């Protein structure tokens, strides 16, 4: 079980599901799935992302022992952090995809080196900007938390990712088992 989870982590870390994907993010307008669809068991990728966000909030409240005053501010700032990360990752993916299109195996000479340089510059600038925005988002969150909670939040983020990956793996295995049983 743990080994399988590690393979999922490796997929994410090595990049099999990573930056070269053209769009690993759901657009914001799909983040709220119509209730009717939820009831019918139809979940768009955006709805799943929204559920993961909710899961993160519930788990964070539990892990950080937030009081009522902290909770209201924390939720808004955690959402901001999630949105910042998502938006920048999406922009990063798009530039990498463009670089891949221009320099990948299917690209044919002559290569437009000026355009490639432009995209590399854009990627560097985006990554710098993303780091700054993320830093600001973390600073805003830290303002709500005491120092122990700040530390716990860093640990929590990693543990949460592990829990999410575990759920993802169980979801895949559950469906695969049903398919195997149905044959």
């Amino acid at each position: 079980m743990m080994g399988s989870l590690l393979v999922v982590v490796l997929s994410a870390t090595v990049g099999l599901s990573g930056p070269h994907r053209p769009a690993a993010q759901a657009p914001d307008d799909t983040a709220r799935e119509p209730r009717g669809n939820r009831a019918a068991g139809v979940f768009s990728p955006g709805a799943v992302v929204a559920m993961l966000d909710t899961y993160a909030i519930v788990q964070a409240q539990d892990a950080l022992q937030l009081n009522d005053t902290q909770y209201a501010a924390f939720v808004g700032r955690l959402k901001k952090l999630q949105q910042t990360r998502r938006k920048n990752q999406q922009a990063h993916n798009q530039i990498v995809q463009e670089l891949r299109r221009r320099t990948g195996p299917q690209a044919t000479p002559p290569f437009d080196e000026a355009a490639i340089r432009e995209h590399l510059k854009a990627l560097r600038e985006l990554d710098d900007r993303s780091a700054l925005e993320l830093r600001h988002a973390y600073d805003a969150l830290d303002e709500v938390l005491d120092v122990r909670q700040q530390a716990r939040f860093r640990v929590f983020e990693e543990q949460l990712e592990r829990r999410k990956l575990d759920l993802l793996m169980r979801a895949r295995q559950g469906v695969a088992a049903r398919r195997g049983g149905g044959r």
Partner: protein
Amino acid sequence: MKHLSRAELVDFIEASPHMPAARARHASTCSECRAEADALRSILALATTDDVPEPSPLFWDHFPARVADAVRDEVPGRSSDAPAGMRWLRAPVMTWAVAATMSLLVIITVVWRTTLHAPAPVMVPATGATAAANATGAPVAGTAGSDESDVDTDEAWAVVRAAAQDLRWEEAHAAGLSAPPGAAEGLALELTADERSELARLLDEELKPNGA
């Protein structure tokens, strides 16, 4: 009017801006929904104030290292009994972690070099769905996801999978392998519709109060 669903009740007690006004009005006027919401609020309040002592979050991170230290202190008397060629089997966790990392790096290099010289993939003309996805940034099964559909059948990746099968999480973590925030989300977007429904069911179970 229909009573509030569980998700709507959560939105209601969180005063979510996504809660339709009509549903919020219903929650305010319907005694049954109000009772549900009050109960949910009480549970949340209890959960917030409940001061159950728990070990430091770092406890479990450091636990394997402490166990490894304790084992290392105990082993010397016995390890001398082992044949010289087998002593490496008793090496501490870090040695194993480094060895695992080195093995992974070699495998990844081999996979990379293999794919570098692999024939270029056949480009499928974009359909309406892929064009729409490119415009919105949403993933489309069978295009962006085609790589991971190959993962299940990729022999080289199967080697990585086999190598990682017996690797402990703590060992991988000590060797510097961990999932960055957002990694799970990227993978979640690549699930099939069935898998998304299953994930939603699992998340729903996890979000049920008191694990009920």
